């Protein structure tokens, strides 16, 4: 993700300046005769393509979901805008251009929402499947229906008429297109800097991790596709009003595929990259066509497709990503990671979360796991396990590899659904609720493999971890207005405090992937604590740490219990650490609970020793 700046007055002024240049330049150049109608049309198509590329980038570059039918959404926008703005037999009142754009944007969003609904509830490639079929449906069928287009004849889209000024000249309409491009860029920048951008990025990195931070994965994937669809509808209407005529063939699958190609080779997730790729292609296509003829220009698409395969094979984030990585490597070399001793002080309690219930006010345990069973195919990974985690304790969960510890963690945090059993937190039954609801209810966790968005900086991860307290709405995210700036500023303050407390201030803007493994662990634990959850579940925090760091970890774990007054459920293989910090432990072997009690007692029991030795042999 591009580093983003909050919308200060200076930034607003800069956008205003760019907007003025974008609008006046083509008009002036048109007056001077430099920008003739042919050239302005070529540039206009490139700008419309750039808006479409930004639209696909929101879905694919940010949220990591594939649409193979984006031009069908552009088509929806164009046909809807034609219905609204072109006078016809069925539509005697032709409405203004701006109304057409708004209707096209709305229609694109609504249609994307509807086709995304069945596909995005599921993990995997289903959106790609549904959208490719959708593109065929629109082009082969509905765009040719008599209702939308009177057969395959196509529809007219008039150029805007504002007052008495008619945008018939291409250079003048190009000014409109550029103005919209600047606006869409601004919306995109706001989105990236908001909780939406972070949630999308987290989903793209790892859906399970995203949910553990309280992100409702299905809802946010749908939101990404809806925003993307709305922008696609807008781009389609602009494209249609540029050429003043479209038919079903305009939105053929080949166009959708080519758009995807541009976005990938431009650099997934990079605004500048995808816009540059779209503009460059438009100009290149035109110049090659002028110099060598249309036949040679046609090979540009073929070349781009080869470049796409090369880009994907070499580096998953495209050309812009490769450039960015190279730049980061250069910068990182000078400030190489030095050993630091993290501190953990009391993190301020974030507003917007329910107050923590003190230990005295509840009778039962903080967390009660009752009869949980998980089957994988024919294998029983967790077998009828019940455990209690009392408030204010550090409870250890140990057992040989493959005993089912992480599976039980996943069942508790909601990352998977157990085949039987109940999970209760403070007497509230959470069984059957998705992971993001449990995160909001007060369960924070870490993962065996680091559960952070490793491309993002330490600060951005701390902001991502506060997703549940970012209570502003999606529209406020896009506009960068309303409650969004205030809440973001509060979150940023809390993130800075937490980073300061952990002793990571000098790495605040460093991408997490550039930190050492042990440092990533500390950041991950910090993220799990930043929203002050009732229960912190840590999955092998000492894995990969140096012995000195493990001693330090023991002190910090006790701090979490004694200073921060939190409850900890801990999976650990480091037995000395477990004996050192845990108040009580549970032992799992082959999915079943074999022992429970005080640490020193339990590890001396013959059945526990046998489970470990048996596994060792």
């Amino acid at each position: 993700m591009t580093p983003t700046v909050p919308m200060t007055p200076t930034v607003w002024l800069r956008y205003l300046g760019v907007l003025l240049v974008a609008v006046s330049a083509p008009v002036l150049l048109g007056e001077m005769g430099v920008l003739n109608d042919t050239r302005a049309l070529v540039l206009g198509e490139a700008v419309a393509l750039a808006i479409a590329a930004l639209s696909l980038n929101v879905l694919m570059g940010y949220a990591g979901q594939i649409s193979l039918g984006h031009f069908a959404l552009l088509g929806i926008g164009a046909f809807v805008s034609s219905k609204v703005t072109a006078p016809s037999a069925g539509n005697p009142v032709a409405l203004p251009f701006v109304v057409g754009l708004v209707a096209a944007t709305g229609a694109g969003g609504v249609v994307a929402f509807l086709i995304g609904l069945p596909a995005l509830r599921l993990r995997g490639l289903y959106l790609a499947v549904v959208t490719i079929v959708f593109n065929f449906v629109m082009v082969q069928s509905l765009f040719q229906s008599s209702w939308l287009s009177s057969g395959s004849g196509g529809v007219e889209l008039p150029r805007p008429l504002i007052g008495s000024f008619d945008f018939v000249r291409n250079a003048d309409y190009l000014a409109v297109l550029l103005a919209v491009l600047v606006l869409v860029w601004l919306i995109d920048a706001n989105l990236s800097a908001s909780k939406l951008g972070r949630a999308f990025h987290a989903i793209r990195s790892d859906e399970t991790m995203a949910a553990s931070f309280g992100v409702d994965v299905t809802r946010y994937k749908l939101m990404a596709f809806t925003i993307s669809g709305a922008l696609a509808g807008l781009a389609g209407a602009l494209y249609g009003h540029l050429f003043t005529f479209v038919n079903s063939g305009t939105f053929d699958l080949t166009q959708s595929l080519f758009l995807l190609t541009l976005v990938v080779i431009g650099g997934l997730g990079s605004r500048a990259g995808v816009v540059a790729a779209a503009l460059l292609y438009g100009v290149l296509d035109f110049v090659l066509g002028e110099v060598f003829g249309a036949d040679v220009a046609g090979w540009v698409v073929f070349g781009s497709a080869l470049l796409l395969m090369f880009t994907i094979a070499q580096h998953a984030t495209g050309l812009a990503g490769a450039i960015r990585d190279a730049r980061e490597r250069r910068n990182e070399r000078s400030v190489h990671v030095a050993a630091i001793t993290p501190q953990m002080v009391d993190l301020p309690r974030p507003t917007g979360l329910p107050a923590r219930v003190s230990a005295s006010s509840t009778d039962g345990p903080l967390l009660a796991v009752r009869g949980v069973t998980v089957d994988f195919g024919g294998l029983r990974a967790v077998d009828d396990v019940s455990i209690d985690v009392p408030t204010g304790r550090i409870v250890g969960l140990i057992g040989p590899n493959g005993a089912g510890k992480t599976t039980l963690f996943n069942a508790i945090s909601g990352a998977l659904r157990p085949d039987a059993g109940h999970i209760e937190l403070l007497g509230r039954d959470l069984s059957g609720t998705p992971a993001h609801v449990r995160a909001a209810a007060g369960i924070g966790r870490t993962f065996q493999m680091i559960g952070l968005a490793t491309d993002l900086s330490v600060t951005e991860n701390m902001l991502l971890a506060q997703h549940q307290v970012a209570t502003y709405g999606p529209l406020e995210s896009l506009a960068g207005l309303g409650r969004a700036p205030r809440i973001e500023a509060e979150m940023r303050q809390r993130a800075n405090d937490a980073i300061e407390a952990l002793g990571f201030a000098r790495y605040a803007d460093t991408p997490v992937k550039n930190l050492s493994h042990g440092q990533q662990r500390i950041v991950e634990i910090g993220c799990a604590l930043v929203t002050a959850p009732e229960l912190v579940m840590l999955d092998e925090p000492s894995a990969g740490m140096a012995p000195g760091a493990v001693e330090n970890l023991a002190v910090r774990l006790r701090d979490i219990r004694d200073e921060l007054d939190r409850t900890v459920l801990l999976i650990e293989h480091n037995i000395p650490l477990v004996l050192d910090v845990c108040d009580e432990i549970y032992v799992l072997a082959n999915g079943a609970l074999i022992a429970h009690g005080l640490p020193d007692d339990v590890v001396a029991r013959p059945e526990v020793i046998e489970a470990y030795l048996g596994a060792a042999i």
Partner: protein
Amino acid sequence: MGQVLVIGLVEGTLFGLLAVGITLIYRGTGSINFALGEIGTFGLYVAWWLTIDRGLPWIVGAAGAVAVSVALSLAFERLVVRPMKVRSPLAISVATVGLLTALLSFEFQKFGESPREVPVPIHGLGVRIAGVNVSPTQLLSLGVVAAIALGLGQFLRRTDFGLGVLAAAQDPDATRLVGVPLRRVTAFVWGAGGAVAALAALFVAPTVGVLTPGFASTHLFVVALIAAVVGGLSSLQGAFVGGLALGVLKSGVLRVFSESALPGKEYLVYLAIGVAVLLLRPDGILGAPRLRGAT
């Protein structure tokens, strides 16, 4: 009714065949090969060149088509998939979109949009089944698909290599345990995919009549993809049954709504079926083992 069934089943076997190809690649690699239809189209252009242009017999064209499609698939696996730095199912699938785009633009550049005549294996009237004329080509098609389906089924279930292929997606360790290198499994699924794509394209061509860029993507792949979803992207039998069902539905819809002026009605049916399966039975009609939800 009989007519709808016969026409639908004949075409449905070809949808099913390609759906099996999609499913095999999905099971072997976790990715969807979006270029699979177009790999078939490319083979068909080779068959067109050998038979219509060069005047060679159909069987030579067919052999050429299968050989080129298989070679193209294997080359893609070797040159693009295997050297990948991040070989995730998503990355592989996006790369196949690149292959699809490359093939489409190559066809447009090389052959243009003007339709070409398609090679037909056997000319003649054929036989009447349930009051429907079934051409010799369609009979041959049924025979070939049946032979492949049975042969592939036996091969996958009765040989160690086949069992390794079936186990690959769920449990790479199991594949290694039966002594099958994963690399050969991957090469096999891509190669087999290419072969079924060429065959399906060859046999569906006489029904469609003309060859244009995007031929098999438009007439075969999009249906086969939904058929594969009907099989939960994991069950080969489910995918084949899905293909048959979609073939019959297509012919039924075209028959019932033959008066309607709306073109491409069958695509609406494919989308509706796909959406219904995703909403109601996302693991497929034959209830494959649960693969989602686990981390």
